[in-house]
């Protein structure tokens, strides 16, 4: 019996390359459920290191899937991220495609 978590017939090339990475998918999933989140909030939810998370957030930012806002709360810098309309649409399409694969 095939492992349900491993399906060799799953053609992942049909999926959005930018989202189809464990960390980036997790970031998108975190941001889709909320308005905006601080860097440390995403880091804790995604369970990634600061450096690794920064790289993946940068990729999402370059694709215009997330927008970033930097501000100071008192003397403390705060960086918050939120999904853009394009990112929200891309994530929805990604989910639709996954669900389409399951129905097939």
């Amino acid at each position, binding site marked *: 019996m095939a492992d349900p978590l491993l399906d060799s017939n799953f053609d992942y090339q049909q999926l959005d390359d930018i989202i189809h990475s464990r960390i980036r*998918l997790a970031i998108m999933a975190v941001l889709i459920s909320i308005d905006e989140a601080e860097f440390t909030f995403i880091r804790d939810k995604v369970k990634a290191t600061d450096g690794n998370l920064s790289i993946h957030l940068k990729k999402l930012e370059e694709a215009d899937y997330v927008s970033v806002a930097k501000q100071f709360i008192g003397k403390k810098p705060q960086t918050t991220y939120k999904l853009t309309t394009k990112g929200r649409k891309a994530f929805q399409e990604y989910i639709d495609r996954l669900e389409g694969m*399951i129905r097939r």
Partner: protein
Amino acid sequence: MDNKMSQQSPDAELQYIRKIIADSRTAFVEDGKPYIIWGLIVAVGMGITYVSAYTQRDLYTGFVWMGLVLFGWATIIWYIIKKRRAPKRATSFMDRIQGAIWGACGGALGLGVLLIVSYPHAADLPSIHPIYACFVSSLILGIAYFLSGIANDLNWLRNIGFAWWAGAVVMYVWPTIHVLGIYAAMLLLFQVVPGIILLRRYRRIVGTVQEA
């Protein structure tokens, strides 16, 4: 790390996404404390008012209410300050909706109380007679619970709204002095008890997230 995802089935990916979304939403779980605080305060005040009216004895209800409301506001302000001081690292639309629901309903109830205490002949007005006030505030609390249950995706909390509306109907068709006692009991059952359930749920969820 990137390649790991490509080996997973669509099912596993969707499960993973659902898990992440559910986990993120735990940051906005209600702790139920304001429900318990206000529920207890108003239930005690209303209970004393009921006993005073029923036994025809002066139990200094005016002073009791003044003390209880001041204590209530002091506790709520302390709770809000404490919550705001804690680092808020994410915001959600549902969180804002939740605040708006209770802000609007609490504001309407607060405005009613303010009008009553600021008008010297308030007791003579039928529109703000204690029985009528209990009826109106039950309707408002019904709205607050119904919407709050939908915002939190908790059917049992939404159904508490129906309980408040049912209580309002009873108060309307049976406008006796016992309405005050009924209202006090409803506060304990449909305000304090839901608050305790929310608090226990909050502790369980936060505990689970911290353990993970």
